């Protein structure tokens, strides 16, 4: 981008210089500063004789030093790039708690297997002024090789884990714990749990849903999308909103070029399912008719150009 385009983009009014200190509206803009500089350069050119003065930056160059210039230049650029890489590389995470309370300095507490309560952690990380509204001896920690298990044995629950009230929790990397005015983040070098979660979350729609714990029953009659082409996998509508499209953020990803990046979505509305088109270029069809939004019925045929699914509430069509 040429220089003067950038100059034009800056606001013409400029901005107050040190308005924190001075109340007057003394402003400077980019155009006026350029004009001032040009005037000074012209004034300088009128008196060329001043350029004959002598100082450190006018000594003649030794011929030996000529060899050093190119390696110095290349070395400088390499050092610059190296320092950025070094700046950005993360060190290995240690196992412990980091206090991230605002307006307080960050401090780290490494965890051992000897730690049973939250008492030593809070005494190390918090100041005397911060209030922690709980009995710390009843907040038990059990440190194992796989991770940390945190349990609150107070009568009233006094801690928030990921901003939600919970009595017992197995801590993952990056979990945030609130205890009164103190906020901590748990850091752990291992990331096994996180990886497993990602794997299950990406393919959840194509797996058979598990038994729900509250009812202790298997979900037999799960609403599904059964493909007409039998080689493809069936899709189970477990979420409240499932997105359909070609980009990777969607739940159901049909691999066809006629499908838009964000094609359509299926919402659960009062026990029934509603198919909504998201301004797709080729359109979504139900029973051969192009629709904007429609409540789905049993054995409706949904099609995105070439790809066809059949919607069922029971999970069986054949």
């Amino acid at each position: 981008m040429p220089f003067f385009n950038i100059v034009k983009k800056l606001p013409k009014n400029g901005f107050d210089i040190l308005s924190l200190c001075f109340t007057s509206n003394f402003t400077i803009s980019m155009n006026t500063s350029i004009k001032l500089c040009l005037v000074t350069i012209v004034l300088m050119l009128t008196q060329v004789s001043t350029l004959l003065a002598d100082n450190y930056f006018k000594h003649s160059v030794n011929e030996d030093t000529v060899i050093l210039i190119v390696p110095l230049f290349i070395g400088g650029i390499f050092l610059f790039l190296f320092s950025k890489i070094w700046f950005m590389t993360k060190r290995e995470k240690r196992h412990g708690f980091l206090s991230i309370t605002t307006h307080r300095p960050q401090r780290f507490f490494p965890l051992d297997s000897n730690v049973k309560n939250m008492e030593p952690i809070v005494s190390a990380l918090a100041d005397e002024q911060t209030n922690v509204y709980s009995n710390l001896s009843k907040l038990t920690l059990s440190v194992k090789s796989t991770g940390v298990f945190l349990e609150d044995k107070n009568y009233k629950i006094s801690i928030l884990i990921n901003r939600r009230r919970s009595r017992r929790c197995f801590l993952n990397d990056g979990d945030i714990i609130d205890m009164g005015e103190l906020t901590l983040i748990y850091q752990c070098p291992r990331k096994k749990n996180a990886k497993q979660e990602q794997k299950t979350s990406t393919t959840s729609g194509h797996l058979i849903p598990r038994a729900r714990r509250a009812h202790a029953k298997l979900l037999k009659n799960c609403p599904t999308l059964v493909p007409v082409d039998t080689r493809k996998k069936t899709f189970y509508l477990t979420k409240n909103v499932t997105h359909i499209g070609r980009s990777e953020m969607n739940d159901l990803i049909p691999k066809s070029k006629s499908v838009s990046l964000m094609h359509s979505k299926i919402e659960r509305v009062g026990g029934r399912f509603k198919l909504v088109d998201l301004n797709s270029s080729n359109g979504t069809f139900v029973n051969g008719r192009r629709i904007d939004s429609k409540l789905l019925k049993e054995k409706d045929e949904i099609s995105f150009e070439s790809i066809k699914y059949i919607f069922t509430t029971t999970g069986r069509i054949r």
Partner: protein
Amino acid sequence: MKKKFFPYLIFGIATGIIAWACQEFLFILIKDGVIPSFLQSVLSGTLLGAIIGAIIGRLEGFIVYNKPQALRGTVIGGFFGGISGLFSFYLVDYIQQHLPSMVAGNTYYLDFLLASRWTIISVFIGISIGIRDQKNHRFARGVLSGIISGLIGSGLSIPIFSEIQDPFWARGVYIVSFVAIIAIVLVLTSTFGRKEWIKALNGKYEGIDFELTQDIHLLGSQIDDDINLSSYQNVNRTHAKLLKYYTGYSLVDNDPFGQTFVNYRSIKEQPLKNGDILKIGNAIFQYCKKAS
């Protein structure tokens, strides 16, 4: 910015070495007769100022992959640095030539005069940083850091130039130490006068503070976004926006999948308060506000 001094020191040393090498190359051209010799000091001043200003102005955008800010920083920093170098070197020459009675009596006075031009260069670089960000407190911070680093740097020039006899090495040592001082002072004054910022808690930017100054900040994986999150998973192009209101900032969801959270709850628009945790895709930030 991260509050780590050692990487910034190396950034400063690297820029100093680059500027030094370019300047020595210019001197060789002058010795061969390509450029007339009476322009030597003025041209070296402009070149030094332009290179130092351009790289220092680029630094902050270069670190956090903010391309527009980096480009603006190079152009404005290079322009102001060059102008300041030309102006300061010329001024010193002018005083030496036309007002010899001021300098003749005392050698310390001459040293002081020669040292003062570095203060002018560093103050102009601070001004260029302020103009890049278009904010009053940024401007004040730039000027302050420029004055501090200029005073330290110009004070340092007297012992270095009197101790080291070989002009090549004297120039090199001084330029490198001068730029290193500027870089360190910029880190030290980076928290001066800031009101709202978000602190990254995981991933690539862990520990970096993004200061919020504009009316709109775009968060996403696109190149043009103000806070570029392309290294995180589940982040769309222009995923969310931070809008400024009278009381503070509020987070606005911009992606269709509902992957923007405040305090682990999915939101459409939510005004933020101190200590809130923003989750955008897989990136986690903490919103901080200056204590009133």
